[in-house]
C-alpha cells in the first residue's frame, strides 16, 4: 500500500507529461493549454482509462468534451478534410491517448507497477479527493480533464458530466 496519489504526483508534472503527448501525437503545432488548477469545470464527454496496479492502485482517466473528440481523432489520425472519424476511430484514439498518458504516469509512481489495457465509457466513479489528482486543460477551445484516481471508490460520484 503506498501513499495516496496527491503525495506522489502534482498537477504540474501531469500537465508536462500531457503536453509532451499532445505535441508528439496530436501534432507538432498542437498545444495543450494548461488550466493550472484542479478545480476546472467538469468535462461533458466520453472517457478512456487504464488501470495501474502496483504499490499504488488506480486509474489514469482522460475525458474530452464531446465536440472535441472528433477533432482530436482527426488530428491524431492526420485525416484529410474529406475524411470522417468513425465512432470506432474516436474510441481507439481516446484509448491510445489514455494508454500513453497512463504509461508515462506509471513511470513516475513507485514500482514495479503493471499497466492494464485501455477501456472507454463514461467517466468511472472516483476516489476520495486525497487520492485524486485532476488536471483540467484546453485544446483548440475544447475542454479536457486528466484524472489520476485511486482504486477505492470512496465517494460515489464522478467529477465529469456522465454521458
Amino acid at each position, binding site marked *: 500500500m503506498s501513499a495516496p496519489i496527491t503525495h506522489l504526483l502534482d498537477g504540474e508534472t501531469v500537465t508536462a507529461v500531457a503536453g509532451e503527448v499532445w505535441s508528439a*501525437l496530436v501534432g*507538432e503545432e498542437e498545444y495543450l493549454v494548461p488550466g493550472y488548477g484542479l478545480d476546472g469545470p467538469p468535462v461533458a464527454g466520453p472517457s478512456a482509462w487504464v488501470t495501474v496496479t502496483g504499490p499504488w492502485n488506480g486509474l489514469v482517466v482522460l475525458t474530452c468534451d464531446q465536440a472535441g473528440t472528433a477533432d482530436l481523432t482527426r488530428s*491524431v*489520425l492526420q485525416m484529410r478534410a474529406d475524411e470522417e472519424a468513425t465512432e470506432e476511430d474516436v474510441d481507439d484514439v481516446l484509448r*491510445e491517448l489514455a494508454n*500513453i498518458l497512463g*504509461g508515462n504516469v*506509471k513511470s513516475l509512481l513507485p514500482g*514495479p507497477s503493471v499497466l492494464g*489495457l485501455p477501456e472507454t465509457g463514461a467517466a468511472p466513479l472516483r476516489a476520495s479527493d486525497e487520492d485524486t489528482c485532476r488536471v483540467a486543460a484546453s485544446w483548440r477551445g475544447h475542454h479536457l480533464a486528466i484524472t489520476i484516481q485511486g482504486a477505492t471508490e470512496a465517494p460515489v460520484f464522478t467529477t465529469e458530466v456522465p454521458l
Partner: protein
Amino acid sequence: MRALVIDDSRAMRRIVASILEGFGYETRPAGHGREALDVLEEGWVPDLACIDWNMPVMDGLQFVSAVRAVPAWRSVTLMMVTTESEHGQIVKALAAGAHEYVIKPFTADAIGDKLALLGLLPTEVPA
C-alpha cells in the same frame, strides 16, 4: 524495405505505418504478437518490426522472445515502440532481444533517428 507494425491500437498502427512509408517502407499491420507471428510464419519476413508492449493475446515482450528463438528470423530488427518507460522495462526488453526502444509519445523524427542508427534508412529515398 519491409516493416511489420504491431500494436493493438489502430490509430498507432496508422501513425507508425505512415511514418515508415514516408521513409520508403512497405508495411503490414498486426493487432497483437500472435497475429504478427502468423505473418512471419506465412513467409513475410520484414527488415524491421515495431512492437507495442501491452497488447491482448500475446504481448510485445513474448513476441520478441518468440522471434529470437527462431534462427531463420534473426535478420529481423526488433524495435519496441511503447509507453512502458521505466529504466527496468527497457533493460528487460533489451535482455529479451529487442535491438532498439522508442518511448511513446514520439515524433516522426525520433523514428527516423532510430532507423538511421540501425542503418535501416533506405538511402534512395530523399530526406
